[in-house]
């Protein structure tokens, strides 16, 4: 019997989150809840131009306003904060120039901070921001990624000669021959709109520098405290162990809160200059202009199939504009890299050729947002698959059955070189088709079409990158930990403290870690207390991103728990004059193994260990604390797979799309807390729906972002969301004892593809086709030729 199927295991049970009542009773501590003595507030003057030289900044008037403590410019910040370069060396040839928190010479996108006011209140700081006088010399802007590489287009970094940040090519060699021999070829150009991850709590931090200790404490709403610690220590030249990053409650992050933002860095620099705590809370408007954007891609792709519908070759060309710099330290090349790695990933594809180009432009910076690259890779791959199935007259479900990787064919490697350890595409598809009653739905669709009602069914198979090894970032020179650690400490009253390097963003991590810790050690859930998000206290780790927290952080908890239990039973055996193998620790009780007969409560053992060590044999160390770290070794990434389906209705008069139902079957390996996995899927699907139908960062012809309020930038809202049914296949990964893979991003990765395919399925009888997201009424009506 393993730890997982013991009757008292908490693994696989949907226990409520331990932090739920705290948050619902308003006892959460978000950054803006923290008030420090002598604390000041920062506000930023941001560039009103897409591209402009800063001829002169006059801060005199602003500095004299009530409450203003200091007005700082890029030059002031650069004196204490070293520039950073957002490239990864394993993305060969990538380039991006050194970047400062605030530029002193040229602003390269609207919203880039160019001066900051530090004042007694945020309102006073904003008053003073208005009083800063800047003389600008507007420069021609490179806005359109399609034109960014053309001769004559303004070059944002003149030393580079052109606006290319990075280019990657993959070629298996036989693509042209495969296309020449194909029975059918389909081709499409897909357009994906820029959007962003609107977090409920905006970006926020308080930087507190003590000149006496030469130490910096940062209260931070973020995902990766140790990463920020390393960045701040090296850029601000503070000894790393004297930089403490504390993340208390975080109100959502979605990949937004894991980057090096000029306003946040300048706030930390200003704290060092002034020696006082400074709070910066991004307001909603500056979140829209200054948070990272994502997904601005144009992909042209084609697929070759034989007469039986077997895929022969895939070719694609991806172009993306990332703003004026590559973001430090993760780089802005990863989304393109993922698209090249993942497109067509669920299928056997003998030949593959791909080109990805990442270009600079004078818009807000793009970087990694939930499901990095996946929504595009899946929409392109699945879009082509549906086109090919239609072209040869095959049902799209059958086409997938024929081409999906077989469930007994692992380990194997994709055309792009991705190594798969164990996936379940065929089982997942079969489960999905059953869940949605596919044939019945097709019959309903056909019957309604006769009445002029256009409904569509869209399928999307996918793979998802989870549990990344150092091959993601570390190998490229970034100070981003791929390993993660856990310390378990059993205290005198048998309370179990669990300290982990992975972080809670509101996704329920504390519940999952509590379940693993309680199960591995053998204590009740109620006696576990979680500690996350504090670089002074938790083991060094990477934090929460790339669906790694449960798979990697959870394995460290499990291993620490197994060792702690071993120590407890060893001590118990000596006290009870028996052998450890005869004993077990169950629900905080020492029992005779295989029975529920209590021999000693755990608190009795801890009491002896801590207070009455005289009762312990001399060779027993009174040490009930264990730390374990875990890293993924055998694979670059531990892939998951899944499949989604969308059922929707297109109003062919208005172009409106009404979502009727959504299904998702996900294989994230061992599901620790099924309800939280389901909610990750649902939340992820909602964000995917946002990108598919609503969310769009729209710029005007002068590079001004025009969607800067919640009235203009449309996030998905409950009324329009469909019912979602979630199913699971469990293929535990053999790379860890826990067997858990990630579940955080699949929903977002697959939903846009399912919706795009469903819209096109609905429009097919009308001969119309949509290839752009968000698929707005305007896009749909244009496809129908009605406007």
């Amino acid at each position: 019997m393993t730890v997982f199927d013991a009757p008292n295991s908490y693994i696989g049970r949907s226990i409520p989150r331990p932090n739920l009542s705290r948050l619902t009773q308003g006892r959460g501590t978000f950054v803006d809840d923290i008030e420090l003595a002598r604390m000041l507030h920062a506000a930023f003057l941001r560039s009103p131009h897409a591209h402009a030289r800063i001829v002169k900044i006059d801060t005199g008037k602003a500095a004299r306003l009530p409450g203003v403590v200091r007005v700082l410019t890029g030059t002031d910040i650069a004196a204490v904060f070293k520039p950073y370069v957002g490239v990864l060396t394993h993305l060969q040839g990538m380039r991006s120039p050194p970047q400062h928190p605030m530029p002193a010479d040229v602003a390269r996108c609207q919203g880039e901070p160019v001066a900051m006011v530090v004042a007694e209140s945020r309102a006073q700081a904003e008053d003073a921001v208005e009083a800063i006088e800047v003389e600008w010399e507007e420069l021609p802007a490179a806005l359109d990624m399609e034109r960014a590489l053309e001769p004559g287009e303004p070059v944002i970094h003149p030393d580079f000669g052109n606006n290319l940040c990075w280019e990657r090519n993959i070629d298996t060699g036989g693509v042209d021959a495969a296309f020449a021999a194909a029975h059918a070829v389909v081709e499409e150009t897909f357009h994906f709109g820029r959007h962003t991850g609107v977090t409920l709590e905006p970006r926020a931090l308080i930087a507190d520098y003590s000149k006496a200790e030469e130490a910096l404490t940062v209260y931070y709403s973020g995902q990766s405290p140790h990463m920020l610690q390393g960045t701040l220590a090296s850029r601000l030249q503070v000894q790393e162990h004297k930089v403490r990053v504390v993340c208390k409650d975080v109100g959502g992050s979605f990949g937004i809160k894991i980057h090096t933002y000029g306003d946040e860095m300048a706030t930390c620099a200003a704290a060092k200059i002034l020696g006082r705590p400074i709070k910066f809370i991004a307001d909603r408007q500056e979140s829209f202009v200054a948070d990272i954007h994502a997904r601005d891609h144009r992909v042209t792709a084609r697929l070759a199939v034989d007469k039986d519908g077997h895929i022969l070759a895939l070719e694609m060309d991806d172009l993306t504009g990332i703003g004026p710099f590559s973001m430090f330290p993760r780089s802005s090349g990863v989304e393109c890299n993922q698209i090249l790695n993942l497109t067509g990933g669920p299928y056997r594809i003998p030949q593959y050729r791909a080109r990805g180009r990442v270009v600079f432009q004078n818009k807000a910076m793009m970087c990694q947002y939930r499901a990095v690259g996946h929504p595009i890779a899946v929409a392109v791959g699945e879009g082509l698959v549906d086109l090919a199935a239609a072209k040869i007259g095959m049902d799209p479900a059958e086409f997938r059955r024929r081409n999906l990787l077989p469930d007994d064919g692992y380990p194997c490697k994709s055309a792009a070189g991705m190594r798969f350890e164990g996936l379940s595409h065929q089982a997942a598809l079969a489960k999905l088709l059953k869940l949605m009653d596919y044939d019945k739905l097709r019959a309903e669709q056909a019957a309604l079409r006769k009445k002029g009602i256009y409904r569509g069914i869209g399928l999307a198979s996918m793979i998802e990158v989870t549990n990344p090894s150092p091959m993601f970032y570390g190998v490229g020179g970034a100070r981003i930990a791929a390993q993660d650690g856990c310390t378990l400490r059993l205290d005198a009253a048998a309370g179990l403290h669990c300290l982990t390097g992975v972080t809670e963003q509101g996704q329920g991590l504390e519940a999952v870690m509590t379940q693993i810790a309680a199960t591995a050690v053998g204590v009740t859930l109620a006696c576990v207390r979680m500690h996350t998000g504090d670089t002074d206290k938790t083991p060094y780790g990477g934090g929460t991103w790339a669906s790694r927290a449960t798979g990697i952080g959870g394995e460290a908890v499990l291993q620490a728990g197994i060792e702690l239990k071993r120590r407890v039973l060893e001590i118990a055996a000596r006290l009870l004059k028996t052998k450890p193998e005869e004993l077990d620790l169950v629900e905080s009780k020492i029992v005779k193994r295989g029975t529920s007969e209590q021999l000693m409560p755990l608190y009795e053992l801890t009491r002896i260990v801590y207070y009455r060590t005289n009762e312990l044999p001399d060779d027993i160390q009174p040490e009930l604390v264990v730390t374990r770290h875990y890293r993924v070794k055998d694979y670059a990434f531990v892939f998951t797979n899944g499949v989604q389906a969308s059922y929707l209705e297109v109003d062919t008069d208005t172009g409106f799309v009404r979502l009727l139902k959504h299904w998702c079957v996900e294989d994230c390996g061992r599901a620790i807390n099924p309800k939280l996995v389901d909610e990750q899927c649902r939340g992820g699907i909602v964000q995917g729906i946002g990108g598919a139908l609503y969310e769009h960062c729209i710029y005007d012809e002068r590079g001004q972002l025009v969607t800067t309020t919640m009235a203009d930038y449309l996030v998905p809202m409950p009324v329009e969301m469909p019912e979602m049914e979630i199913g699971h296949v469990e293929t535990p990964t053999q790379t860890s004892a826990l067997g858990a893979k990630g579940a955080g991003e699949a929903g977002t990765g697959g939903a846009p593809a399912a919706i795009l395919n469903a819209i096109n399925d609905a429009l097919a009888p009308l001969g119309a086709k949509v290839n752009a997201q968000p698929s707005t009424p305007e896009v749909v009506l244009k496809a129908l030729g009605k406007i």
Partner: protein
Amino acid sequence: MKAPSFSYERAESVANAIELLARHGPDAQILAGGQSLMPMLNFRVARPAVLVDINPIADLAAIRVDKKGVFIGALARHADIEHSGEVAEQLPLVAAAMPQIAHPAIRNRGTFGGSCALGDPAAELPACCVALGAEFRIAGPKGERSVPAAKFFAGVYTTALEPGELLLGAQFPARQPGYVSRFLELTRRHGDYAMVGAAAHGRLDKGRLSDLKFVYFAVGDRPIMAMGLARAVEGKPLDAATIDAAVAALKDDLDPPGDLHASSVLKRHLAGVIARRMLNEYATHKGA
């Protein structure tokens, strides 16, 4: 997003509000429900030196029904109107529009007068007021006056209200037998400002419409009465040919400017879709 400093005055009565507005002149701004004003303050788009808060004037919140019809006070909250049995009975058009206005939290604070006085051309209530022939009651330093809704809305965020005046509410005529209302708007998400919407009120007799007021919103700088459409249906059987002619007449009735979420071409197209759907509803209407 912190508002610039301003002073605050609390008006205890209409007379007091008029006096405060006179005292502070053009620097004063009336605060009602604040659902548009507060964001504008925080965006620093509006920069009044003084806010005159009319919320304490309880009389302004009343919804009164008498022989003349229904009077909706300027301070009546959207939620009060939405849940008013009298409004549902006397002004079914307004009742139909209410749930489409933003979200419950906004309707709890937002006021009838605030919506009308702001003059947002995409708002629902101004179009309803025009369709129903409401008269706005206005108090000012020289006494009270009335302005018909059709003349009240003068442009984007522009109304007939003069500086120093306070909107008291609107008088709606009593419900006339045989008149039927229809309301329809197209929004991408429930509660958004409409891409295109229309409020209609007309006499329906044996499948024929007459005296139709078909008022669009979000297609111009104010509520737009579709006169050509009304002429095309006047007294005719509501068959396919009539409806086609009515939709065709919109070409001259409307010249919608595009906005962020709908181009001019899209708005024109959707206006036609709305007209067709609403006229079809009239054509199949059962009952009085």
